[in-house]
């Protein structure tokens, strides 16, 4: 079972000084543990200033996954990396609201570009 699932890893993409984590599908406990471990390790190795978690591929956010994400964001914060969540779909946003999960402490953005802009990544045009 572990062997079969060990290839299932969430990719962590480094973009400038940010780490982008596109979450997808169902996140099991093992996967969540591995993800938290990997991301924190990458923050340490790469000196990343921030973490952007993209939820576009997540169809359901239950309180367990919210807890995993808030733990990850808190731990990343302790290491000096700020976290932004992005890509939440309308249904997920509405259900979180009904569930009473307080995300006010978490910074969120609509799309990946907005999230990166929030983290201080700027697009320089040629004129500049």
């Amino acid at each position, binding site marked *: 079972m572990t062997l079969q699932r060990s290839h299932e890893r969430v990719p962590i993409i480094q973009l400038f000084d940010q780490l982008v984590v596109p979450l997808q599908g169902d996140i*099991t406990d*093992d996967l969540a543990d591995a993800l938290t471990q990997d991301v924190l390790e990458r923050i340490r190795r790469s000196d990343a200033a921030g973490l952007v978690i993209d939820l576009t591929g997540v*169809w*359901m956010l*239950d*309180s367990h996954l919210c807890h995993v994400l808030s733990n990850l964001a808190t731990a990343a914060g302790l290491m000096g990396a700020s976290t932004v969540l992005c890509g939440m779909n309308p249904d997920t946003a*509405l259900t979180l609201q*009904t569930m009473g999960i307080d995300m006010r402490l978490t910074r969120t953005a609509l799309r990946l570009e907005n999230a990166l802009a929030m983290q201080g990544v700027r697009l320089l045009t040629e004129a500049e």
Partner: protein
Amino acid sequence: MIRICADVDILAARNALRALALDIGAPPRTVLELSIVVSELAWNVLKHGGGGHMVLESIDDLERGIGLRIVAFDEGPPIRDLVSALRDGFDDCGPIDPSTLLRRGGLGGGLGAVARFTDALSYVQHDGHKRIEAVRYLRRPSSRPRPDARKAS
């Protein structure tokens, strides 16, 4: 019947729910909400009950029409205070201290979410067995009290 012994079983329960909900023609939003209900109940079975099982079935009530029934069974410790457990940020002993939030492995919002996403919730404990049943109808009954009901209270 779906055995809940590991976190992969929760995925199986969620998938079974999705198939069942689509089968009775539930809209996407309802499927999402009920998946969360299954997920929260299954996590409770796993975390507090040390494993157990769930039963998912479609129902056709003469009065209320088509719906889904989600039942979770486990043999864990009983819920001490149901009213408290239903509140967000509370567990069955009262408010959750924010400083212990990271350690306890949950936000305390699970059962409250279950209650809001369903139309009927019942909890029975007997002889070390615990049973939580949640029912959701496709046409949700109005949550507003009827005028005559208000007069009576």
